[in-house]
């Protein structure tokens, strides 16, 4: 019997492909945002509002990940933005290979910002790098304030935390301070925005964040 040391990350193939995607996005100067959340947190609604608000300034597109249906892509298209739907069947996350597969349907050279709406799930999407610049974690108050404590991986992966449905907070037992301190326990440096898509509050800071990240990306030398 011979023992052979391997020390190989099981997802190294995904990570290698994601690194290739990241280089391609950098060459084209496209800011790519990987949107993570539970089902029903409001990812698609946030993207609809974003599409309507920013289309005049920035060239946007979205990749929509869902187990089934074209419904999310249809909603984004109705908001005037190019959208490609990926149906994962029973798959609980998007991976780099799926993104690579739909890129021919998008003209990256004609884009400024690409949103990737991941499958609604706080566990598996956190494990798969898609070549994105930033991961945005959306949490809504109706999910409960214990999510950061229960799903630290999603918090660790996130570069921005957006707390949605704040208009519903008076009808829930969601404690924003407890939420904030649980987040800080895992990742104190994580910036957080508080918004309500329905009431359209706090959205301006989200739009500014996107524009700032896009400008920063364009300042990087194109490779």
């Amino acid at each position: 019997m011979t023992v052979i040391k391997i020390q190989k990350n099981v997802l190294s193939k995904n990570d290698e492909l994601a690194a290739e995607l990241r280089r391609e996005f950098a060459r084209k100067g496209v800011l790519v945002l990987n949107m993570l959340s539970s089902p029903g947190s409001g990812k698609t609604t946030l993207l609809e509002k974003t599409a309507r608000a920013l289309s005049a300034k920035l060239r946007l597109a979205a990749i929509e990940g869902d187990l089934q249906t074209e419904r999310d892509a249809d909603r984004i298209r109705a908001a005037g933005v190019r959208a490609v739907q990926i149906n994962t069947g029973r798959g609980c996350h998007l991976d780099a290979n799926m993104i690579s597969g739909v890129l021919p349907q998008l003209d990256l050279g004609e884009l400024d910002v690409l949103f990737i709406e991941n499958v609604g799930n706080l566990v598996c999407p956190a494990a798969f790098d898609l070549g994105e610049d930033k991961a945005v974690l959306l949490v809504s108050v109706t999910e409960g304030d214990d999510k950061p404590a229960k799903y630290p991986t999603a918090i660790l992966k996130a570069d921005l935390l957006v707390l949605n449905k704040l208009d519903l907070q008076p009808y829930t037992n969601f404690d924003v301070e407890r939420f904030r301190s649980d987040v800080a326990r895992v990742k104190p440096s994580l910036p957080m925005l508080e918004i309500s898509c329905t009431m359209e509050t706090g959205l301006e800071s989200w739009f500014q964040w996107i524009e700032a990240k896009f400008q920063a990306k364009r300042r990087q030398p194109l490779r």
Partner: protein
Amino acid sequence: MHEMSIAISIVSTLKDEMALHPGMALKKVTLGIGELSGVEVESLRFSLEFALAEENWQGIEFEMTKTPLGARCRECGARFAAEASDFRCPRCGSDKFDIEAGQSVTIDSIEVE
């Protein structure tokens, strides 16, 4: 929940590795399961059975060990177990660190004969 994709990736990596050792049979695989990889060991074992059957591989023993969430402090360089020390550097108290291990699944070693 993503154990099936992990299992398929494991088997595909093992196939690549075994191609380097012609005439040898795979007997045992040691996996490191990151504390925060989101992988359930029982569910992974279950998924591996299917992924292995696909390749007509049988009788392979899998040993799975937990890999703690390993962090390296950006301020003082100390290495520590992030979750056990409440996401703070036990040496200097800093909360700025990079995760070095424990978020993924690794194939640590294999035994062949």
